[in-house]
């Protein structure tokens, strides 16, 4: 039987508390990883390692998160591509690319105002919980 969303959420919350040194109360479903919880680039690798450890139930079959599956790892290149970002705005092609690469993110808020700033909302606590639910839920 798979895990419930509540069980997954509790584990994800603990991972973020350990990886980012934040309080459990700060880890809310809509809290963004970078802005609200202060995650920096290297923290994303730490979060992946800790999730793998927290969700491994059988050491003989360690749970693995393939590179780029949870956190897309070459968004930097995307920002430098004119097809995706022109005059500081994300193009329609860019939005399509983001949706393709971040299938676990909620785009509702982003779609209202597709800017670089609102792109922050795409990586929040729920994004991780959604991803984990697709794996172990």
């Amino acid at each position, binding site marked *: 039987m798979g895990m419930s969303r509540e069980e997954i959420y509790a584990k994800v919350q603990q991972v973020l508390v350990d990886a980012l040194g934040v309080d459990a109360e700060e880890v809310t479903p809509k809290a963004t990883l970078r802005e609200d919880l202060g995650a920096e680039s290297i923290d994303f*690798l*730490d979060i992946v*390692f800790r999730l793998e*450890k927290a969700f491994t139930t059988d050491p003989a079959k360690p749970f693995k998160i393939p590179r780029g599956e949870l956190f897309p*790892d*070459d968004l930097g290149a995307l920002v430098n591509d004119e097809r995706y970002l022109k005059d500081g705005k994300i193009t329609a092609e860019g939005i399509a690319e983001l949706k393709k690469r971040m299938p676990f993110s909620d785009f509702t808020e982003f779609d209202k105002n597709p800017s670089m700033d609102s792109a922050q909302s795409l990586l929040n606590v729920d994004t991780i919980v959604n991803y984990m639910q697709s794996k172990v839920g």
Partner: protein
Amino acid sequence: MRWIWIDKFVQFTPKISAVAMKNVSLAEDYLHDLYPAFPIMPNCLIIEGMAQTAGILVGEARDFSEKVILAKIGKAKFHRLVRPGDTIYHFARIEQLSETGASVSGVVRAGPDESSPAVAEIELMFSHIDKNMSGAAFPEENFVFTEQFKELLKTHRGGGDIPL
């Protein structure tokens, strides 16, 4: 003074674990700088010794092809002081190793056995920087694993016994 904080490896199991020792001598300058008249090894340098032990373990796992950088100290808890005349042992174990980096759990002990008293518990995370710096370029040459560090590994592999 050279930036080497371990003297030799006493155990090395590739991709799994390593133990390196360090003799702490009153002849070392840094011991006189932290608290004058009360020489102890600073905790940050104990962490550095663990980072060198673990860093070489992580680097060797990929034949020193990656630039392995200490990215994060997840935990560092100290239980006793390290003083001149002490020998400390850095026990490092790879918890996770991936294309992008590694996490290592470590215990510094006051003796060579797993049961020797713990001096410190240290968790470290390493990044393979070429795989993590989207777009940023680093020199081709591996500036992390210079000959100086690779020589350290030979202290174990060569056995260290040189006949007269």
